[in-house]
């Protein structure tokens, strides 16, 4: 497989675009014409060659530009990456997981040579070559979690497991949908999920936590989540709300197709072997509405989902004021025909 890495930005001039191939593999999150919050977890197994589910960590055409964006965000705000002292071992676990799976699944892009604790890592797309000693922090330019997540798309919440709960004790978070590692660090599962409407009453968190506590080594899990973002912003952090929140006001029927983006998170869950911690990579995929409606099934279904979404969910996801406009725009692409089940384009 060859990936052609694109030069693009996720800020200022917003040159981010999906190629037609990237549109085709987009993880459209709606298996049916309506949406309700659910746990929707499944095993993270390789599935559908070419899809975002094929590899352990998906590397796509946006890789190099996304990593540049991460470096930019970190330079402005180093608190986007934090790790409490007891989480260093989990950072090594994560580094090992990412390096071994990338080297195995993308041999033309990444190489890992191991001679006992002497490791040699080559990352071709980013032009990185690093020799280091596994478990010796002084041999890397950053801590192990920061080092490897500066080279891996998606955010990373690294959770300590104790007292029948999960604690957000480390993370790299620069592409988030309006939450903040700096606010959430040290919180447990219920604390950091406190703002989600309805889910508590439905007992969803109790069930989800129970599932996650039992995620086993060698049996990772995944789910999709989604929201909407005006402009292709990876970094929609609460810290920067004053910068991106105002962009929502610029939305018109004319610029809708270019400015409005469906934002899908592929969340995966892995048990880390040395630390027994759980890592929760959250990979963000963006697609403009103009790109989305090139797939007729998605266009129809997305119109119906957005139109019928309960108001509190539209509010929680931050687009309730723009919803009438979005629905009006999407309605032009809904001819009323039935949609086929499942998320993939026909």
């Amino acid at each position: 497989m060859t990936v052609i890495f694109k030069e693009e930005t996720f800020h200022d001039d917003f040159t981010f675009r999906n190629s037609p191939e990237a549109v085709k593999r987009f993880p459209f999150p709606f298996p049916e014409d309506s949406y309700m919050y659910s746990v929707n977890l499944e095993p993270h197994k390789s599935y559908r060659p070419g899809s975002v589910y094929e590899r352990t960590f998906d590397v796509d055409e946006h890789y190099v530009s996304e990593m540049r964006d991460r470096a930019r965000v970190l330079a402005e705000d180093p608190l986007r990456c934090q790790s409490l002292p007891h989480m260093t071992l989990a950072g090594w676990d994560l580094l090992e997981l990412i390096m071994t799976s990338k080297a195995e699944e993308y041999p033309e892009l990444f190489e890992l040579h191991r001679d006992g604790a002497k490791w040699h890592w080559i990352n071709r797309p980013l032009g990185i070559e690093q020799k280091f000693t596994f478990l010796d922090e002084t041999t890397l330019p950053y801590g192990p979690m920061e080092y490897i997540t500066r080279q891996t798309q998606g955010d990373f919440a690294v959770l300590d497991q104790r007292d029948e709960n999960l604690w957000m004790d480390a993370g790299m978070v620069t592409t988030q949908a309006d939450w903040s590692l700096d606010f959430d660090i040290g919180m447990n599962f219920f604390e950091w999920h406190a703002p989600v409407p309805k889910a508590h009453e439905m007992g969803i968190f109790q069930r989800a936590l129970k599932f996650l506590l039992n995620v086993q080594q060698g049996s990772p899990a995944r789910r999709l989540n989604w929201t909407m973002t005006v402009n292709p912003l990876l970094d929609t952090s609460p810290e920067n709300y004053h910068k991106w929140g105002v962009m929502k006001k610029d939305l018109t029927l004319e610029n809708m197709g270019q400015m409005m983006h469906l934002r899908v998170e592929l969340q995966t869950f892995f048990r880390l072997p040395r630390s027994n911690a759980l890592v929760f990579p959250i990979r963000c995929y963006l697609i403009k509405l103009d790109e989305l409606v090139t797939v007729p099934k998605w266009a129809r279904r997305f119109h119906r989902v957005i139109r019928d979404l309960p108001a509190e969910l539209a509010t929680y996801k931050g687009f309730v004021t723009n919803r009438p406009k979005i629905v009006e725009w999407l309605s032009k692409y809904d001819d009323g025909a039935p949609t086929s089940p499942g998320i993939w384009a026909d």
Partner: protein
Amino acid sequence: MSAGAAKIPVTVAEVTPVNELVTRFKFVRRDGGPMPTFSGGAHTVVEMNDRDRVRRNPYSIMSDPGDRGAYSISIRRDDNGRGGSLFMHRQVRPGMEMVISNPVNLFALDLRARKHLLLAGGIGITPFLAQIKQLSAMNGNFELHYSVRSASLASYADELVANHRSRVHLYHDERGEQIDLPALLDGQPLGTHVYVCGPKGMIAWVRNTATALGWPREAVHHEEFLAPASGKPFEVMLARSNKLIRVGEHQSLLEAIEAAGVEAPYLCRGGACGQCETDVLEHEGTFLHKDHWLTPTQCASGTKIMPCVSRFEGRTLVLDR
């Protein structure tokens, strides 16, 4: 989710008698590859094909978490048990092919601890052997207090003393030695976590003493896999699979469900992990709850049972399985 953790086909590489009651077993992967990395305190479930039945028992992995070449476990022979340990002692030979589960850790070190105080009784030493190797590799601060029946039954005591003389304290029952627990717990620096693994009485003693001395619950860790109790045979209706099964005297409800070809989740098979929790749809009779998982209220409600260790006496039991 499927039953149990992912499985590993292994070959028995070594069977080593440790003393008159304990034998060590070493497993390597059949395909020659490395074992999955694990952390100190993890267990593996060993499947035993004992004539017409499959036994599955959890055992702590005692080898070095840094060594991916093999897993070792130590098993104490229990002549009055249900037969798993006797099968391992009598039937298992080097070269035999077996299946074990991926490691699962229900007894992990709390890596925030400034000091790890490890309290072992008898065969309860096994998870600590791996934890001590892990802690030594990280320069962790630990202290082991190991209580044994007699010098000849003190599994791995010599090795522990040889490698960590200043950190290991041994107590021989036959010499009337006992851990001075209140003094030990009282003298610990702030940020110490205590871990206990051993007989039921020892676990209760440590937990109660720690509570009485004001230790926070989160700083006291224990592990105990209960062996499923034997009892009167009983019948169970599995509603979803539409099967009527019979649980034998020396069989657990979980084993009977599996023997009927019905998939049932589990991780520890010892009443500790919560994975096997099953809804009771109907019952007329008494539950014999044995697990560490259900709350007293849940037990009293008659709506849940943990089939890995618990039993039932009565006329009807219908499960959602």
